C-alpha cells in the first residue's frame, strides 16, 4: 500500500495547498514543501529498506512492492501498481526534482499560489502514477492525468507566448497519447482473442504472441507516444515552446520528469511488450537518436533565448537515452538510466538558474546579458558547474551516463557511436557559449542584481553534490536497477515466457507487509474513498474561482482553433 501513498500524498497535499491558499499566500508553499519532503522521505525509505534485496538475484518476480486493487473487473482493468528497481529510481528522481521545483518557485509565483501548487503537485502525482502503473489502462489514465495540470501550469503562469505553447504541448502529447491508446486497445484485443482472458495487466500481456505485422504496428503506436515525450526529432517541436514559456517549476518538471516518462515507457513497455518488432526497429531508432543528438546540439547553439537554448540541449541529451534504450545491453541501459537521472538534475538546475535570472533582469534574451559573473558570482559559478555537467565532464554524473551509452553502442554499431560521440563536441560548444554569453564578457548593461539567496544556493548545492556523487560513485544507482534491467532483458529475450516475471505471491506479501510496518507512522489510515469524500466536500464550499478561470482558458484555447 505504500505505493498508493506515493500517489495520494501529492494529490492530497495539492488539494490542501489549494485550500490553504485562500487564507495566506505563504501557506501553499509551506504545505507543498512539507508534502514533497514527506514524499522524499517515503521514497528514500523505500530505497533504503529494499536496497539489500534489490541486489539479490534470488528475488522471486520483479516487483519489490505491489498494490493490486480491483477497479473495473468487467474490462479487465485493475488498479495495479508495482515498483521494481527501475521505477524506484524514477520515483526518487521525481521526489527530488519535485522538491527543487517547489523550492524554486517560492518567490517566482505570486498569483493564484494555491492553485499553482495544486497543479504542480498533481502533475507530480500523475508522473509517479505513470512510473508505478503496471496496468495499461491505469497507465494511460495517469499518462493523461499529468497532461492537464501541466497545461494549466504553462497556460496560466507561463511567459509571453504561453497560450500557444500550452496548446502546442497539449496537442502534440495528446496526438501521441491517442496513438498509444489505439495500440493499448489493439494489444488488449489481440491478447484477449488469443488467450480468452481480456486484461490490461502488464505482466499478463507480456509475451503475447502475434503476427509480425501486428506487433510492428502496435509497437509503433507506443513508440510514437513515447517519442513525442522524449522527445525524438522530428516530433520535438512542442518542447522548445513549452519549456521556454513554462514557469520555472514547469520547466524543471518538464525537462527533469515529463521527458523521462517517455524514456521510462520505452524501457518498460515498448521493448518488453514487442521484443521482435523493437529489435527490427532498433536501427531506425538509433539513427533517429543520433540525428536528435546532433540536431539538438546545433540548433541549441543557434538560439538567442537562453531558456530556449537550454530546452534544445534536452533534445540532444535525450538522444543518448534513446540510443541506449535501443542498444538494449546492460551497459547501454544503465548508461541511459544514469543519463536520465543526471540530465534531470543538470538541466533542471539550468532551468532554475534561467528562471532566477529572468526573475531578476526580466529577460531571457542572451543579447542583453553579459558579464553577470561580476554581479552574481555564486549564480555564475553554479551555472558554470551545470554547464560543465551538461557537456559531459568526467567526474560528474552525466559523463558516466553518456560514456556507458556510447560504450554499449560501440558493440552494436561503430558508425553510430562515432557520430553520437561527435555530439559531445557540440555539447561543449553550446555549454561554453552559455557561460560566455551570459556570465563572461563585460557587464555592458550595468546589471546590478542580487546574487543567489540561501534558499537558491541550497537547491544548487543539493543538485551539485548529487551530480558529483553520481560522477564518482554511481554504483548505488546501478545496484538498484541492476535486477530490474536484467529482468527486462530476460523478458525481451527471444523465447521468454510470462512465468519468468510473475511475482510469487508469498514474497510479494512479505515485502509489502514489511514496508508498511516500517514506513507508515499510523495504522489508522483513511481510505482513499474517504479522501474523495473530503474533496467533494471542499469542492462544494470552494468559491470555484480557479476552476472558472481554467475552464474559461480552455474554452478560449479551443475557440482559438477557428
Amino acid at each position, binding site marked *: 500500500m505504500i505505493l498508493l501513498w506515493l500517489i495520494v500524498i501529492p494529490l492530497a497535499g495539492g488539494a490542501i495547498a489549494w485550500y490553504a491558499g485562500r487564507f495566506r499566500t505563504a501557506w501553499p508553499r509551506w504545505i507543498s514543501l512539507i508534502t514533497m519532503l514527506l514524499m522524499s522521505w517515503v521514497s528514500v525509505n523505500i530505497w533504503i529498506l529494499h536496497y539489500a534485496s534489490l541486489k539479490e538475484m534470488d528475488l522471486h518476480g520483479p516487483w519489490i512492492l505491489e498494490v493490486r486493487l480491483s477497479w473495473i473487473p468487467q474490462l479487465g482493468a485493475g488498479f495495479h501498481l508495482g515498483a521494481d528497481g527501475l521505477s524506484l529510481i524514477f520515483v526518487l528522481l521525481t521526489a527530488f526534482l519535485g522538491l527543487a521545483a517547489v523550492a524554486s518557485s517560492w518567490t517566482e509565483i505570486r498569483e493564484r499560489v494555491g492553485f499553482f501548487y495544486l497543479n504542480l503537485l498533481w502533475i507530480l502525482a500523475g508522473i509517479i502514477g505513470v512510473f508505478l502503473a503496471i496496468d495499461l489502462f491505469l497507465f494511460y489514465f495517469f499518462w493523461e492525468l499529468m497532461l492537464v495540470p501541466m497545461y494549466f501550469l504553462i497556460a496560466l503562469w507561463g511567459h509571453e507566448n504561453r497560450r500557444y505553447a500550452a496548446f502546442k504541448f497539449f496537442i502534440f502529447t495528446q496526438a501521441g497519447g491517442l496513438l498509444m491508446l489505439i495500440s493499448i486497445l489493439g494489444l488488449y484485443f489481440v491478447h484477449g482473442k488469443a488467450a480468452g482472458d481480456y486484461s490490461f495487466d502488464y505482466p499478463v500481456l507480456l509475451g503475447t504472441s502475434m503476427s509480425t505485422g501486428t506487433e510492428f504496428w502496435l509497437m509503433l503506436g507506443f513508440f510514437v507516444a513515447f517519442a513525442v515525450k522524449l522527445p525524438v526529432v522530428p516530433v520535438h517541436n512542442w518542447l522548445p515552446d513549452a519549456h521556454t514559456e513554462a514557469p520555472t517549476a514547469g520547466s524543471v518538471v518538464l525537462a527533469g520528469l515529463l521527458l523521462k516518462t517517455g524514456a521510462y515507457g520505452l524501457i518498460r513497455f515498448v521493448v518488453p511488450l514487442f521484443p521482435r518488432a523493437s529489435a527490427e526497429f532498433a536501427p531506425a531508432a538509433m539513427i533517429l537518436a543520433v540525428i536528435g543528438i546532433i540536431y539538438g546540439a546545433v540548433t541549441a547553439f*543557434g538560439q538567442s533565448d537562453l531558456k530556449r537554448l537550454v530546452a534544445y540541449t534536452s533534445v540532444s541529451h535525450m538522444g543518448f537515452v534513446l540510443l541506449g534504450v535501443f542498444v538494449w*545491453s*546492460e551497459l547501454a541501459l544503465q548508461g541511459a538510466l544514469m543519463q536520465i537521472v543526471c540530465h534531470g538534475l543538470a538541466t533542471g538546475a539550468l532551468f532554475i538558474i534561467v528562471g532566477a535570472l529572468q526573475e531578476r533582469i526580466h529577460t531571457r534574451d542572451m543579447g542583453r546579458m553579459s558579464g553577470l559573473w561580476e554581479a552574481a558570482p555564486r549564480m555564475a*559559478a553554479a551555472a558554470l558547474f551545470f554547464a560543465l555537467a551538461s557537456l559531459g565532464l568526467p567526474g560528474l554524473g552525466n559523463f558516466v551516463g553518456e560514456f556507458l551509452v556510447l560504450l554499449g553502442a560501440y558493440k552494436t554499431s561503430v558508425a553510430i557511436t562515432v557520430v553520437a560521440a561527435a555530439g559531445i563536441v557540440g555539447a561543449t560548444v553550446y555549454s*561554453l557559449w552559455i557561460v560566455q554569453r551570459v556570465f563572461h564578457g563585460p*557587464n555592458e548593461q550595468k546589471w546590478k542584481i542580487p546574487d543567489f539567496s540561501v534558499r537558491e544556493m541550497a537547491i544548487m548545492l543539493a543538485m551539485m553534490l548529487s551530480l558529483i556523487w553520481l560522477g*564518482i560513485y554511481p554504483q548505488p544507482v546501478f545496484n538498484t536497477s541492476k535486477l530490474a534491467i536484467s529482468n527486462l532483458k530476460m523478458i525481451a529475450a527471444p523465447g521468454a515466457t510470462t512465468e519468468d516475471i510473475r511475482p510469487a505471491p508469498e514474497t510479494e506479501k512479505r515485502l509489502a507487509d514489511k514496508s508498511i510496518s516500517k514506513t507508515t507512522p499510523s495504522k489508522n489510515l483513511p481510505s482513499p474513498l474517504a479522501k474523495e469524500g473530503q474533496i467533494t466536500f471542499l469542492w462544494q464550499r470552494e468559491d470555484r474561482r480557479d476552476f472558472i478561470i481554467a475552464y474559461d482558458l480552455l474554452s478560449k484555447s479551443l475557440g482559438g482553433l477557428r
Partner: protein
Amino acid sequence: MLEFLWLIPALPFAGSLVLAFAGRRLSRGGIAAFGVGSVGLSCITAFAVAAGFIGQAPPGHFYVQRLWAWLSVGGFTPEISLYLDALSLVMMLVVTFVGFLIHLYSSEFMIEEEGYGRFFAYMNLFVGSMLTLVLADNLLLLYLGWEGVGLCSYLLIGFWYKDPANGLAARKAFVVTRVGDTAMSIGLFLLFTNLGTLQIQELMRLATERWAVGSGLAVAAAALLLGGALGKSAQLPLQTWLPDAMAGPSPVSALIHAATMVTAGVYLIARTHVIFSLAPVVQEAVAVIGALTLLLAGFSALTQTDIKRVLAYSTISQIGYMFLALGVGAWSAAIFHFMTHAFFKALLFLGAGIVINALHDEHNMFKMGGLRSQVPVTFWTFLVGASSLSALPFVTAGFYSKDLILFETWASPAGSRWLWAAGLLGAFLTSLYTFRMVFVTFYGDAKMQVSRKPGAIMTVPVVILAVLSVLAGFLELPSSLGNVRIITSFLGSALPSETVSPGAAGAGTALMIVASAVSLAGIFAAYLLFFKKNLAADRLAGFVPGRMLHRLWFSGWGFDWLYDLLFVRPFFWFARSNKDDFSDLVYLGMIWLTGRFNNMLSVSQNGKVRFYAAGIAFGAVVVIAIAVFL
C-alpha cells in the same frame, strides 16, 4: 611511505574545494596559504613517496593503490586506483615541483588581481587533475584527469573573463582539444570492446597477446589514442589553440601550456607504448607529425612579435621533438626532454611574465628593449633558459636532452636521416628565434620604463628553475661525455630501452658536434640579425615572396583560416539560419492547412436560403443517383 600516494592528488583537490567555497571569506594571505600550501604539501609528499619508491623498490617496480570501485556494470569495472612506476614517478615529481614553484611565483604575481581566490582554486584543481592523469591506473580515470586539466586550461585562459577575446581563446582551446578527446574516447570504447578492460597494464598485456603487429585493431586503437594526444599536446593538425591560449596569465602559460598539461599527450603515448609498438604505421606517423610540427612551429616562432606567442610556438615545436622521439621508439629520451623542457620553458614563461608585468602588460617585444640592466636577475635567468632552449652545447640541460633525441632519430631502426635532418633544421630555428627574442627584449635601447620590479617570492622560483635548467642535463650524459644514464636506466623499469641499429652507435660524437655547431650557428645568426641589426632580415622580408612567407608564418601557416572556412563558418551559418527550427514548418503547415480547410467549409455556412436549398437539392440528386445506379 607509498601508502600516502593518494594524498598527492587529494591535497590540491582539497585546496581547490576550500578556495572555491571559502575563498571569498579568506584574506589574500589566507588564500595564498591554502593555494600554495596544498601544492607544497603535495610536493613534499611526492618526494617522500619517491624516496620510498627508490629506496626500496616494490616488487615489479610498480605500486598500485586501490581507492574504491568507481562503477561495475555489465563487466565494465573501472576503479579509482593509482599506479606508480618509474614513468609516473618522474611525471609526478615534475608536476608537483614545478607546480609548486609556479604557485609560489603566482602568489606575488597575481596579488593585485580581483579573482585571487578563484585563480588559486582553478590552479589547485589543475594540479589535482594533472596528478590524477599521471597516476591513473586505468584509462577511464586517466580520461577524467585528462578532461579535468582541459577544463582548468579553459578556465585559466579565460581567467580575465571581461575581455571577450580571452573567452574566445579559452573556448577555442577547449573545443579543439575536445575534438581530440572525442577520438580518444572512441579509442577507449574500442579497447574495452575488444580487450574487455581499461586497466592500463592489463590492456598492454592483452594487446600483445591478442593483436599481431600491424593488425587493424591495433592500428585503429593507436590512431585514436594519438588523436587525443595531438589535441592535448597541440600537434598538427590540432595545434591551433595553443598560441591563442597565451591570453591567460603568464603563470598559467608556464604551468599548463608549457610544463605540464601540453605534455600529457607525450605521457599518454609513453604510457600506452605497447599499443603504438603494435602499430608501426601509427608510430611512424607520430614521428612524422612530430618532425613536421617542430618545423612549422619553429618557422612561425621566427615571425611573432608577442613574446608569449614566440614561447607558445616554441612549446609546440619542442613537443614536436618529444613526439619525434616517441615515434622512433626513444621513449625515455622523450620523457627526459619533457623534464628539461618543463624546467626551462616554465622559467622562460615566468621571466616573460616579469617582463610583461614590469612594462604595463606590454606583450610586443619590439616595444621593449634594453631590459638587461633594469631587471638583471630576470635577464640572467632568462638567458639561462634561452640557452637551454637553444641547446647551448655542454652546459645546458636542453642540449643533452635534445642531443639524445637527435642521436636516437639517427640511430634507431625506426628513425631516418630525413627525420634527423628535420630535427637539426628545427634546432637551428630554435636557437635563431630564441636569441631573436633575447636580443630584441633585453638588448638595444630601453623604450619603456620599468614600473614594477619582481619581489623575492617571484625571483626565488625563477632562480631555482634556472639552476635546474642547467643541472638537470647532467643526469644523462652521452657515452662520449661520461656516459651517465640516470634517467634512462631509472625509466628502464617502465619503458623499453632504445634500440640502436648496429653501426650507428659510433656516430654519437660526430652527431653531437654537428648538433652543437647548428645550435651555435643559430645563435650567431640571431646575433648578426638582431643584435648587429644586419638589415638582411628586413630586406628579405621586404620582397614580395618574403612578405607573403612572413604573413603565412605569422598566422601559423593559415590553419586558423582553413578551419574557420571548413568548420566554424558552416556550423555558425547552419545554427543561425536554423534558429527557428525548420522542422517546425511542417507543423505550421498543418495549422495553415487546417485554417484553409476551415475557411473553405465556412463558406458553405453563409446564411443564404437559396444556397442551402440548392445544396439540399444537389444532395438529394446524388443520393437518388447512388440508390438507382448502384
